[in-house]
C-alpha cells in the first residue's frame, strides 16, 4: 500500500505505535486498530457527534481527522475518560437521570458534556443545550441529558 505512515501517540495515557494508511480516519483508527469501540461513526460528515474524541485536550469530530494527523498527539476516548475517574459524577448523573436509552450517542455526549463542565461554569439550561447542539440523540429528546449536566454543574459548584 502506497504511502503508509508510522505514527506514535498516546491514547488514554498509553503509548501507541502503528503504521497506517493516510486515509484512515481517527474514529476508524481507534475502533479498528486499537479496539476502542466506544466512539461510533454515525455520519462521516461531522454532523452527528457520535465520533467525538478528545485530541490534545479538545473535543473533536473523529471522522474529520485522519490518524496520521495525531502523530505526537494525546488522544482520549470515552474508555479513557471513564477509567480516569474524572467524570464519575457525570457518568453517575447520566445513569440517575436516564440520560441514555440505546447508548449510541452517549460516549460523544459525555465527552462534550465533560468539555462543557471543564471550560464553562454557571451555564443555563439554554446554554447547555447550545453546547451539546452538535450531538445528535434520537432516543431521549435531550431533556434528561440537560438535567444530568445541570445537576453535575450545580454539585461541582459551577
Amino acid at each position, binding site marked *: 500500500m*502506497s*504511502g503508509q*505512515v508510522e505514527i506514535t501517540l498516546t491514547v488514554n495515557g498509553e503509548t501507541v505505535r502503528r503504521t497506517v*494508511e*493516510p*486515509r484512515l*480516519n481517527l474514529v*476508524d483508527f481507534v475502533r479498528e486498530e486499537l479496539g476502542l469501540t466506544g466512539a461510533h461513526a454515525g455520519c*462521516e*460528515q*461531522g454532523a452527528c*457527534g457520535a465520533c*467525538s474524541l478528545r485530541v490534545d485536550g*479538545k*473535543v*473533536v*469530530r473523529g*471522522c*474529520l*481527522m*485522519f490518524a*496520521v*494527523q495525531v*502523530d505526537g498527539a494525546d488522544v482520549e476516548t470515552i474508555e479513557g475518560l471513564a477509567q480516569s475517574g474524572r467524570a464519575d459524577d457525570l457518568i453517575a448523573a447520566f445513569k440517575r437521570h436516564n440520560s441514555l436509552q440505546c447508548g449510541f450517542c452517549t460516549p460523544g455526549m459525555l465527552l*462534550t458534556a465533560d*468539555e462543557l463542565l471543564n471550560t464553562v461554569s454557571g451555564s443555563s439550561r439554554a446554554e447547555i443545550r*447550545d*453546547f451539546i*447542539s*452538535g*450531538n445528535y440523540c434520537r432516543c431521549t429528546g435531550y431533556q434528561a441529558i440537560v438535567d444530568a449536566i445541570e445537576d453535575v454543574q450545580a454539585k461541582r459548584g459551577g
Partner: protein
Amino acid sequence: MKPSPFEYVKARSMDDVFNTLERHGDGAKILAGGQSLVPAMNLRMALPEVLIDINGLSDLGTIELDGDILRIGALARHAEVGDSALVASHAPLLAEAVPYIAHRGIRNRGTFGGSLATADPASELPACALALAANINLASRQEKRTVAATDFFKDIYETAIMENELLVSVEIPVKREGERFGFLEFMRRRGDYATAGLAAYASFDGDRVESMRLAFFGIGATAVLAPKTAEAFIGRTIDQATIDNAVPKLNDELEILSDVHTSADVKRHLTSVLMTRVLSGMVQI
C-alpha cells in the same frame, strides 16, 4: 463513505508546502482544520492525490495586534478566535459571529483561514471579512500578495487563491471610535448553515452614518455586499424611515438563489428583515 486513497505530506516549513503544491498542482489540497474538506472527501466529492497537512506550521496560528491592524493567522481555530480578548476588543463582530459556526467539536479544529478559503456561501466568516473590509494575505514561493475581501470571493467555493498559493493570514482594521457592528443569522437549527444572515458595519459621526457595509450570506453563490443599499444611509440617521427607504433598494440590488429548503423570494424577504433588525439594533430603535 471512505475517502479515496491519497498521499500525506506533513509540512514542516512553507517550503514543504510550496514544493508539494508545485509538484502536484490541483491534485494537492491543503489540510488545515479539515472540517469542510474532509466531509467532501468522505463523500468522494473531493479527490485529492496529496494532502498537505499545515497544522504543524504553528507560526500560522497566531492572533496579534500590529498597530491598528488585527492580524489573524490562517490556522487560528474558531474556538481560539471566539475566546480571544484581542478579537473581542478589536473585532467584536467576529466574537459575535463565531458561536454561530457549526458546533463545539468543529470549532475546536476549524480554522479562520480555512473557512475563508472554502468560501461556503452559507458560512459566517466570509461575510464578516466583507463587513470588516479585511485584507487577505496569500503567499506563494515567488511572492506575497494581499487581496481585499471584496476581490477575494469569486463564486461558490471559488476564491482568488491561485494554485500555488497558501492563505497565511487575514488583516482587519481595528475597531475605532464611532464604529458599530451587528450580526444576525437565521438558521433552522443551531450551527446549521444560514438560511440567511447579515454581518454589518457602520461608522457614525454623531448619529449620522459616515460609512456602512452590509454583507449578506446564505442567499447566493457567495457572501455579498449591498453597496447601493448601504450608500442610501450615508449622511443620514438610521431610523424607521431610512430603513423602509432602503428595503426596495436592497430587493433590487441583491441576486438571490434558492436552496433546498428555502426559495429565493423567501430569502429575499428575510434579507430585509435582517437589515431592519441589525440596523435597528445598532442604534437601539
